């Protein structure tokens, strides 16, 4: 950030310095008080690359900071996606022996609990580490109820159909869903707009698409293709 800000100032200054001096230009540039510092010395690079080992290399049985003196295996795999062959606890059938074996640990902690090593360096991070799934932000609406309410009667559905057939513009799917307290999918399952309305909406959509330029069209096609690949597990 700083280097970018100082570069416009630096360049004319350099040029001036080079033209003004009669000696070798390299020396002049090195003595300049410039804001853009490059890693031009080996010492600075070496210092920058001297990274301490990961804490797991120190975490012995006593949790100390010394390297282990005895022969032991350090298992520190790189971060990776969880395997789909590892069945979550909830998906195990009732008869599975793994379910019985894990039941006691599951009662105490959920599968999302991250088991940090009990070293002194990471004790502060466990205090702030999220414990429950509610601490992570949800994408979209969190369902408030477990069961669908099934509160609409046959008369309600008839009323919904009548309203939709009367004025499909005012009584849009979203409006009806809000009014009757159901999902948009349920409205779509119950009633169908009159054919002229559907034709009008289709014509509007086509008019919009006709205004798209080649870039927007290609971007949309690519996005659709990317999602098709995603569904087939190719991405």
């Amino acid at each position, binding site marked *: 950030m700083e280097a970018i800000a100082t570069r416009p100032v630096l360049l004319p200054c350099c040029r001036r310095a080079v033209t003004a001096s009669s000696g070798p230009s390299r020396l002049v540039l090195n003595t300049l008080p410039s804001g853009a510092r490059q890693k031009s010395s080996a010492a600075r690079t070496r210092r920058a690359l001297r990274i301490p080992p990961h804490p797991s290399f120190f975490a012995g049985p006593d949790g100390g900071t010394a390297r282990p003196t005895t022969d032991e295996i350090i298992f520190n795999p790189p971060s990776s996606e969880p395997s789909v062959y590892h069945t979550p606890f*909830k*998906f195990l059938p009732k008869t599975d022996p793994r379910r019985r074996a894990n039941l006691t640990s599951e009662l105490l902690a959920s599968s999302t609990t991250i088991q940090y090593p009990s070293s002194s360096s990471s004790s502060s991070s466990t205090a702030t580490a999220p414990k429950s799934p509610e601490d992570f932000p949800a994408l979209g609406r969190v369902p408030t109820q477990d069961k669908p309410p099934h509160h609409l009667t046959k008369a309600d559905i008839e009323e919904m159909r009548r309203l939709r057939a009367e004025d499909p513009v005012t009584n849009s799917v979203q409006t009806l869903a809000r009014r009757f307290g159901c999902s948009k999918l349920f409205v779509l399952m119950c009633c169908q707009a009159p054919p002229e309305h559907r034709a009008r909406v289709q014509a509007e959509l086509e008019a919009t698409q006709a205004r798209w330029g080649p870039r927007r069209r290609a971007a949309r096609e690519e996005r659709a293709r990317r999602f098709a690949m995603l569904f087939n597990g190719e991405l």
Partner: protein
Amino acid sequence: MLLARPGAPSAPTRRAALRPAAASRCAAVRNQSTTAAVPQIPPVEDDADDYDGTDHVRFPPLEKLPPRATSLPSPPPQRALESAKLAALHARLSLPEKLPLQTLARALVDSSADENPQFNNTNLAFVGQALINYQVSEWLMCRYPRLPMNVLFAAMKGYAGQQSLHQVARSWGIEHAAAPGGEVDPGLLQFSLHKPGDAIVGFGYTRAEHENVLKRNWRHGIASRVVFDDDFGELVHTDEELAQMSRRADTEYGNKLTRALAERAYANCARAVVGALYAHAGREPARAFVRAHVLSRTLDVARLFGFKNPTRELRMLCAREDFEPPVARLLSETGRASRTPVFVVGIFSGRDKLGEAAGPSLEHARTKAAMNALKAWYLYSPGEHVRVPSDMLAEDARPWEPAYIDIGEIIGR
């Protein structure tokens, strides 16, 4: 029409029509040498009867052939004992002594090379495919009890399909003859690219709507595939298709159809070896052979899945199983405002995480996480070394514990 036909009807008449007169005379003395009495015919000089036009002074035969061998469609069975290739194949596959070389030679003769069912491998391949498909399907059912039917079909095809068995037979080092005939080495696989042959080594019906399914994209649902189609849920070819195949194979060289014919010949050969092993050595050696050569191959079943609406499918699964409804939550992210962001999304049901995935957009990561959760459901396995029902056929088997059977698919396809 049921395509699997029993026995070999009307073969002698057709053979007589197809074969020249000299060959039909010699077919009267042609014997399958795996039968008990093998008449050893001493090799004699060719007489004028079966002179095939070869100048034997200019092109002397590499080995002493039995009389009239060149006029036969496939090598006579007694030549199997002299073939080095055949003995090498027998040794390489560690086949038992009980399996004679003559049967192994017969397993290498495709029905397109020799139409006589007493001399080609059709019968052996039929037994072999039944054994292989049974073993693979029961193993898949016990190993992955929740697989949807179309994925199960794909997995079956991945293990025991034509292409896989073709690869298996190639890996055994089987080579094929350029053209079949009585004079070629019996250790070479013999098939013809000019006539497709009439070997039927599987079950299945030809459908009345066969044409429309292929050309007009008619519905080809899973339930009817189980009933009508072959073991891999694929349409059974009609006679017209086979005729068209043979016509095109004659005009072009090395096209898709000829490759399919070669693949089928290799696959039938692999099946016939299993059938021969079963016939001569019994059930357990055949099972061990299939386990070693077919089931030992690696197939990533997780890559066979394709989804249409994974988030909805997962919601339906959670509703069916009385789990809390799934909620997607953002576990971590980096570079949201950059060109290449990464979002890690987990799908939770209550306090349990069902799936997790990383993706370049929130929607992408969420869909992928739902797919991973569904795959984790479908790919549940009771263990790596599951017992299968046919393990109980052994004498000293432990008492059977019932295998886990799932209640069925989430979405009908």
